[in-house]
């Protein structure tokens, strides 16, 4: 095939350009530390990469949510333990009182103690986290348990006279938090569960106990039995809350494992293997230099150089 000067130069320039493009690509990868600098570099990889990114963002949200749920449930657990303690102390003191060997003065002392316990129970019911009341259901901004005109009101409802429908409404005001792809946990305990309702709500039991102890003629009643039942209720609640916290732990574990596998997926597509790219870059550089060297030799000499 007949070869002309312009053909040699054109071929040389084309190859030089191709080599430059290759070097440029590696250089871009190295300096940005990303294997994919444009979507079209790896269309299939992009699909997986987007999937991984989206899942990772969800997992981050679940992690946040888990923390929020955790703080509420931990505090609830603590409150329940406190209530449990209160019942224990009241029970111990009532046992002494029921013995019938206490004087009026002693009974008054026990009454004062139990009065304190009774008021403390209200305080526990009004626990606050981050400016929100945790036992108020949807009522997070107003004090849930208020002692008004001698009656205890919970969210404006008289606990002694509360109806079943009202109880259901209060119990339905849950705080469902999404902590996994298909898992949500109720992070709240309603005040009606904590305190109880009707005549056997904890406040009423303690209040009646105080009144009985302070009366002229002390009549023994079934206060101990009622306190015992209440304690069982509290222990049941503690088990429930403990169970929820355990589920949170499990979800956190599961999500961590998901996170690791998605990070892997993302990294395998998006990140470069530094060593590999540097090696390839060096090779490309070597090819480039030899193109230049050979090209220089070929395009220069002409017949006219050799004619005298």
């Amino acid at each position, binding site marked *: *095939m*007949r*070869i*002309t*000067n*312009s*053909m040699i130069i*054109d*071929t040389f320039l*084309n190859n030089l350009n191709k080599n430059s493009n290759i070097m440029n690509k590696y250089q871009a990868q190295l300096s940005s530390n*990303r294997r*994919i*600098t*444009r*979507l*079209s*570099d*790896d*269309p*299939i990889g*992009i*699909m997986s*990469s*987007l*999937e991984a*990114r*989206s899942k990772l*963002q*969800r997992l*981050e*949200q679940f992690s*946040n*949510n888990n923390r*929020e749920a955790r703080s509420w449930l931990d505090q609830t657990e603590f409150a329940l333990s406190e209530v449990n303690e209160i019942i224990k102390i009241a029970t111990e003191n009532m046992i002494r009182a029921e013995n019938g060997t206490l004087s009026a003065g002693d009974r008054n002392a026990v009454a004062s103690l139990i009065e304190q316990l009774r008021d403390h129970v209200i305080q526990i019911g009004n626990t606050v986290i*981050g400016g*929100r009341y945790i036992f*108020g*259901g*949807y*009522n*997070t*901004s*107003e004090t*849930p348990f208020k002692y008004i005109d001698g009656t205890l009101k919970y*969210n*404006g409802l008289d606990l002694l006279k509360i109806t079943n429908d009202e109880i259901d409404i209060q119990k339905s*005001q849950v*705080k*469902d*938090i*999404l902590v996994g*792809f298909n898992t949500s946990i109720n992070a709240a305990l309603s005040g009606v569960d904590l305190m109880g309702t009707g005549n056997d709500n904890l406040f009423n039991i303690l209040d009646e106990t105080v009144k009985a102890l302070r009366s002229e003629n002390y009549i023994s009643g079934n206060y101990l039995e009622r306190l015992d039942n209440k304690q069982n209720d509290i222990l049941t609640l503690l088990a429930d809350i403990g169970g929820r916290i355990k589920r949170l732990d499990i979800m956190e574990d599961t999500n961590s494992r998901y996170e690791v596998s998605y990070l892997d997926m993302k990294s395998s597509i*998006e990140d470069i293997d530094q060593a590999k790219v540097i090696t390839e870059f060096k090779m490309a550089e070597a090819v480039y230099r030899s193109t230049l060297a050979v090209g220089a030799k070929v395009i220069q000499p*002409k*017949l*006219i150089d050799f*004619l005298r």
Partner: protein
Amino acid sequence: MRSTFYGFEIAKMSLAISQKAIDITGHNIANADTKGYTRQRITLASKDPYMQSRFLDPERGIVGGGVSIQSLDQIRDIYIDKQYRKENNLMEMWNTRSEALSYIEQIFDETQDSGLSDSINTFFKSLHDLTNNPADKGTRISVIQNALKMTELFNHYSSQLKDKQTELDNATKISVMRINDISSNLVNLNEQIKSYELKGEKANDLRDKRNLLLDELSGIIDFTYEESKDGTVNVAINGKNLIEGSVRNILESNNNITWLDDGSNLIIKRGSLKAYLDMRDGDSENNVGIPYIINNLDLLAESIGNEINKVHSLGWTLPDFANGVPSITGVDFFNPQITAETFALSDAILENSNNIAASSENITSAELKGNNLVASMLTGIQNRTDIPKISSIDSFLKGIVTELAIETSHARFMFEGQETLTLSLSNQKSSVSGVSIDEEMTSLLRFQHIYAASARLITAIDEYLDVLINRTGIVGR
């Protein structure tokens, strides 16, 4: 009997012709790097002897009359030309398409942390925060901020795409103008070549110009062409004549490209103009262009906006008891007329963050502010796979991005293949028609020698004529 001054004629012709050959060599060398130049070669032939009559001069050893020029040709392979133009046509088309798509894929940079999927995710994240703390002002404001970022990104992408579309439209108009320019030049050249070649000579340099124009035209549009006997070239585009001899048809570009004379649409199948048109107008899966991508973006914005609005309008806003503002329902989160370009928050939301409806019931007293059921439903939209037309937000966006990536990589791949093919044809053209300086140098030497020898010939003839004229028959003078 031989004519006395016969030799002079032969030597004279030889001098002139070798000088002319050197001129042509010079022309070739001067144009060695000229784009589109085809090397020219002189074809010489020996002259027949001058004979008055075969009967009156029965001498033996009759000598020919020297050298004459038979023709001055350009060395060009018209078959390779045809092939080159066909492949160049495809190459320019894929090149144009690939460039346009590369620009668009830069707009959709989802591999960074600032793309569309990121802004949508962040918006839903802030809805989660709202679910955890529905009455908190800071959380509500953050929902609004993230929603704004999302809608603004949609607006931005949409307007960038529309700008590119306008640019493509301009490119189309400019291409049509160029076609008209080229056809006008071609017609001029046709006339010039025709009148020049009436003399029986080849208009080599004019033909080179014409071929260059045809090469350029082949990049823009697909055409067929034929050279007629009088040296003019007729060009037709998918059945309709662009040029016929000295007559040309002009193209007009409005929304469609039409022929001026009869208003019919231009039929175009390949070439850079086709690529511009496809990118500007392509609106379906089989014809991916800017309208298709904008439609998808619109659909995504519409789906997100409508689904959020549907749920949000079931919810109740936060009241402001101190200022006598009650909790209300039926509030839209986004403005209901939704396209990617006009995607925006509703006035109610922009006015007051209390208007975000997180609660499922009328908040008649402060005790109900913690109701977060509607906020929770809003977050659920991100996970739904039954959204009409798009099934799920995540998968639809992934589809848009992946489709774009595949189209772009396909266009680039086709372009690179065509480039190699076209380059190899271009090489073949060079091989046939290109000037080799080395070759020309040897020609130069050859004709130099012939010139020198011919000059010597004249000296020899001069010497013997001198003997004949001045020194014959002077005995005894």
